C-alpha cells in the first residue's frame, strides 16, 4: 500500500530535479502538484491504516518511517507555499523517496500491542516524528547554505547562487527549523519519560521493563537532543550561526537518521514495537 505514494514521490523528485536544472515555471508547478498528490495519497494510506488497526499507525519501524515521510512532505509543502521558495525540493524529495522505499519494502505487518493503547503513545510518537521532520528540513537548508557559501567564497558564482535564496534567509530558516524541532523533541522525550515512569512498576511487557538510558534508541535520541541544544545555545551565545550551524544541523540529522533506520531495524531490543 506504500508503493503508490512512493511512485508519486519518485515523480515529484524527478520534476524537482528538472525544475532545479532548468528553472521552468511549468515544471516547478508540476513538481509541487505531484508532491501534493503524493502527500494526499499518503494521507489516505495513513488514514486507512488508522481505520484498520484502530489507532494512529505509528507502531513498527516501517510505519513510523512512513509517517515521518508523510509529516516531512506536508511540512515541506507548507514551507514551499509560505516562502514561495521551490529550490529546496530537489534536496528534500530524494530523502522522502529513500525513506519511503525503506518503509515500503520492509515487512509492514502490525501486531496489536496492548501497552501502546494509550493517549501518551500518540503524543510521544507524533511530537518526535514532527521534530525529526523539522530537523530534516534544517539539515537540507544547512546543506544548501554550505553549497551557496562555498560558491560565494570561491568567487565562482553560478549554479547554486542562481537558484538558492540568500545566505541570510537560509541561515534564518535553519535556525527556525532547529528551534521548532528542538521544542517538539523535548516535549516528545518528556512525554516518553513520564509515560515510562507510569508504566514500569507494574507492566508485564518485558520490553518496557528493560528500557533504560542505555537502550540504543533512547541513548542516540538523547545524543541528538544534546547536539541540537548545543546548536541553539551556540547560535545565541557564541555567534555560531551560518556555516557552523549548518554543519551542526547536518550532523544532528545524521544521528536522527541513524535512529530511524539502522537502530530501529536491527539494534534496539527494548524500544521496539
Amino acid at each position, binding site marked *: 500500500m506504500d508503493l503508490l505514494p512512493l511512485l508519486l514521490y519518485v515523480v515529484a523528485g524527478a520534476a524537482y530535479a528538472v525544475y532545479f536544472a*532548468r528553472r*521552468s*515555471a511549468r515544471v516547478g508547478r508540476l513538481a509541487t502538484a505531484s508532491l501534493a498528490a503524493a502527500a494526499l495519497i499518503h494521507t489516505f494510506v495513513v488514514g486507512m491504516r488508522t481505520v484498520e488497526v484502530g489507532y494512529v499507525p505509528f507502531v513498527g519501524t516501517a510505519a513510523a518511517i512512513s509517517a515521518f515521510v508523510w509529516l516531512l512532505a506536508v511540512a515541506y509543502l507548507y514551507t514551499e507555499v509560505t516562502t514561495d521558495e521551490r529550490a529546496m525540493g530537489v534536496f528534500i524529495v530524494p530523502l522522502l523517496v529513500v525513506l519511503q522505499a525503506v518503509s515500503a519494502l520492509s515487512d509492514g505487518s502490525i501486531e496489536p500491542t496492548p501497552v501502546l493503547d494509550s493517549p501518551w503513545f500518540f503524543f510521544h510518537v507524533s511530537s518526535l516524528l514532527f521534530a525529526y521532520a523539522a530537523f530534516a528540513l534544517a539539515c537540507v537548508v544547512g546543506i544548501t547554505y554550505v553549497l551557496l557559501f562555498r560558491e560565494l567564497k570561491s568567487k565562482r*558564482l553560478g549554479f547554486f*547562487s542562481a537558484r538558492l535564496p*540568500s545566505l*541570510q534567509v537560509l541561515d534564518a530558516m535553519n535556525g527556525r527549523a532547529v528551534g521548532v524541532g528542538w521544542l517538539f523533541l523535548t516535549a516528545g522525550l518528556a512525554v516518553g519519560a513520564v509515560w515510562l515512569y507510569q508504566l514500569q512498576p507494574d507492566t508485564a511487557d518485558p520490553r518496557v521493563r528493560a528500557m533504560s538510558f542505555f537502550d540504543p534508541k533512547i541513548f542516540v535520541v538523547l545524543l541528538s537532543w544534546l547536539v541540537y541544544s548545543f546548536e541553539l545555545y551556540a547560535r545565541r551565545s557564541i555567534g555560531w*550561526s*551560518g556555516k557552523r550551524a549548518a554543519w551542526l544541523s547536518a550532523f544532528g540529522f545524521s544521528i536522527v537518521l541513524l535512529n530511524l533506520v539502522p537502530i530501529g531495524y536491527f539494534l534496539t531490543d527494548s524500544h521496539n514495537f
Partner: protein
Amino acid sequence: MDLLLLGVSHHTAPVDLRERVDFTKRGVIEALRELATGPAPTEAVVLTTCNRAEIYVACEDAVSMRADLARFMSRFHDVPAPDLAPHLYAHHDADVARHLFRVAAGLDSLVVGEPQIFGQVKEAFSTASAQRRTGALLNRLFTRSFSVGKRVRAETGLGEGAVSVSYAAISLARKIFRTLKDRAVLVVGAGEMAELTATHLRSQQVRRIAVTSRTLARAAALARKVDGTAVDWTSIDDELLTADVVVTATGAATPIITATTINRVMRARRNRPLFIIDIGLPRDVEAGAGELEQVFLYNIDDLRAMISENLARRREQTTQAETMVSEEVAEFVAWLRTRGTIPTVVALRRRFEAVRQAELTRLAPKLNGLSPEARARIDEITRLLIQKLLLTPTERLKSAADEAMAAQFAEAVTQLFDLRDDPHADTPDSVPDTSEGSPSPSTSKTPVTS
C-alpha cells in the same frame, strides 16, 4: 492594414545622432499627437530609449508611409533628412514583429539581455494606449511582445548575471543578505568609483551610508551626494564593527585594512557576515581577510571576471532565445493572415443571413398563421442551418497555410458567392457574427428557389 516600423538604434546610428532624435526631448505624447494629425492617423506607438528611437504604425500603404514617417522624424527632431536617411531602418509586417519581439526580449540591446528595455517597451505601449493611439494591430503586436519578453527571461538565462561592476556588487550583496534595506554601508574613499558604487547602494535603500576619506572635506562632499554621514578616517575600525557592506576605493599604495584588523573586528561582531567590495587599485584590503569565515571579500578583478563570465553565458543563451522569437513570430504571422480573410468571412456570413431574411420575409404571409413559438422555432432552425453550413468554410479560410493560399481562397469565395458588391464587406475589425445586421439592398435580388 500593414504594420510598419521606422527607426534608428545603436546598430545604425552614432550616439550624437541618437541624441538628436531622442523623442523624450519634445515628449512622446507630442510626437503621438503630431503623428495622429499627420502621417499616421490610425495606430502609432513611439519607443524611445537612449539607444533607440522607433515609430510603429498600422497603415494602408507601407511604401508611402515609410517616406512620410522619415519626413516626420526629420521635421519633428529638426534634423536634415540627408543626415538622417542613411541611419534609418524600416521593417514591414512579419519583420516588425520579429524586430519588436527581439527588442522586448533584450536580444537587440547593446548589452544583450539587459532588463530595462522590457519596461521601456511596456511604457511606450501604455503611453500610446492612454492616448488612444493603438488599435487591433498594435495592441496584438505589443501584448505578444510582452509575453515573448517574459518567456525568454523565464526560460533562458539571457537576463541573468550582472554585467556592470556596481550591479555585480549589489547582486552579490543580495546573495549574502536577503535585502540591502536596513543594512549599514561603509564607503572608504571619495573618488569616482566610490561615488558610483555608493549611489547604486543608496538606490537599494540601505539604512545608513558612512563615508570616510583621508580628507574629511571630500568625505563630507560625497556624503552629501548620497545622503550619508561623513566619518573621521581614524574611526574606520569602529565603523567596521557596525557595517554590513564595506566599499573601499582609495588610491592608497598599500592596503589600508589589514587581515589582522578584520580578524579582530569579526570576533567582536560575533561572526556576523561582512561583505567587502575592494575596487581600489592597488588593493585596499589585505587578501588574507577573505579567508576569514564570514568575510566575503571581492576585489575589482573578481568582479570583472564575474562580469565577463556572465556576458559569455548570455551569448550562449541567445540561440535559444532567437528560436523562441521565431516561434512567436510564426504565431503572430498566422494571426495576421487570418485577419486578412476576415472581410471575406464577414461578407459571406452577411450574404447568407440576407438570403435567410429575404426568404423569411417572402414567406411571411404563410408563416403569420403559425403560433409565435412555431415562428421562433423556424427562425432558430434557419439560423442554425446557416451557422452549420458556414462553419467549415470559415475555418478553412482562417487556417489557410500561407498568405497566397488565403488570398486564393478569399478570391474564390468572393467570386463564387458574388460578394464584391457587398457594401459592408470591408470591415476587418468587426467580429463576424451571424446574428447581426439587416439584409443589404443587393441581396434582396438574390434568386432563391423554395
